């Protein structure tokens, strides 16, 4: 009964679009996350790739996904997200034998730091290695 009520409330909240709070960019604007893929080939070459999408609207959504990945506390789920993204990259580079995915955050300089010439800097948070040697041709 308790579960039925909880399910009912959850359905209503989702249906009405009110399951999330309204604190966008509050209390402060969060860090910006980034994922970089290092593709390794059998001949020793390495290439770097970023997730690619077709339009700017999806770019905004990709940013939400990266926030979600970086803030996910359940490690196996985070690894699964990253693996799926790595697989989508590998599909465009099927001769790559391995992909290292590095999730990190971009530190944006404050106005004063920017005036002093400081640029944005990338800091790695997690790295995952995926082996595609058996799948590559």
């Amino acid at each position, binding site marked *: 009964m308790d579960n039925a009520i909880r*399910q009912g409330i*959850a*359905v209503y909240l*989702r*249906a*009405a*679009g*009110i*399951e*999330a*709070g*309204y*604190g*966008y*960019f*509050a*209390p*402060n*604007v969060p860090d*910006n996350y980034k994922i970089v893929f290092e593709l390794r080939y059998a001949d020793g070459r390495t290439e770097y790739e970023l*997730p690619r*999408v*077709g*339009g*700017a*609207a*999806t*770019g*905004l*959504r*990709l*940013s*939400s*996904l990266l926030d*979600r990945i970086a803030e996910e506390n359940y490690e196996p*789920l985070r690894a*699964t*997200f990253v693996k*799926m*993204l790595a*697989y*989508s990259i590998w*599909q465009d580079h099927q001769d790559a034998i391995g992909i290292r995915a590095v999730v990190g955050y*971009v530190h*944006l300089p*404050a*106005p004063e730091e*920017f*005036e002093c010439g400081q640029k944005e800097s990338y800091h790695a948070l997690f790295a995952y290695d995926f082996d595609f040697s058996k799948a590559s041709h």
Partner: protein
Amino acid sequence: MLSLHTTLISRKQVTSPMMRLRKLRRKVQRFLFPSEVDHWLTVLRIGLALQILLYCLSLRRDWIQLFASGAHGLIRRDLAEAILSAETVFTPRLGWVVALGNHLGLNEYSILWFAWWCLVCAALCLFAGVLCRSAAVLAWFLHLCTTDSASLFSYGVDNFTSIGLFYLMLAPLPDRWSLDAQIRHLPPKDQRLQGFHRRILQMHMCLIYFFGGIAKSVGVGWWNGTSLWRALTRPPLNVISPDFLIDAKNILPVLGILVCLAETGYPFFIWPTKSRPVWFAFIIGMHVIIGITMGMYLFALIMVVLNTAAFGPGLIGERRLLLKSRLST
């Protein structure tokens, strides 16, 4: 004589709170069920139709990548739906539509494009006001399916579109400017019902801004301009060059405080007739600027639509329109 006096006093004591309760009830009734013409509903219907149309067009090139469950997706749809199922199994999702299509012998690719076309058709019907109720329900259902199935990719715009579509679906459709009403010569819907639906939307907007404003006010960054700087330089929202922003760094704290003030003050200044036009212009201006300077066009549009539907029609002489409408009926 004494006993009569006592009886009168006690009656007065009993009736006075009752009268006050009745007065309060009448006040609440007048607040919740004001007489309204349906212009707000026309704004909501056409605005949401444009929103859905732009949503579909902006995601057209990535539609399969976002919603496919197989090898074509960025994050497989079935994983997002499994996460959703942990919360509730009854929320609409694209998996249901795909399962139904598979049952009819269609493949996932065709079904996803069919859903895209259905959403576009529902938006076009809403825009013209043809089969308003069915189109509103279809648009709400398919939009909810897509946002729930790609919840990992969703952000504020999806919530606000869902809110708008939910109200539209339940609202007293069709409005007088819809083709449904024009062709079938339908009489306007009950004005108190119109008023009630609009009032709920108005109160919801007040809650959204108030809590959004309070949450921002807690952060130091909105008072010293850092949050605005970060929001405007954060990829992919960095439409404006930081070199240009740095020249305007002294006004960033003022703008940050104005954002907090606009949002927190919304429920207090949007109701009084005198301050309403100013606050309305303030909020609409804020969203238009967000849209232009951060590239969040869809977010700006949905906020402009919801605000205009909730508080816009009153700005252009609602009383005159109401009187005219009463005279005509």
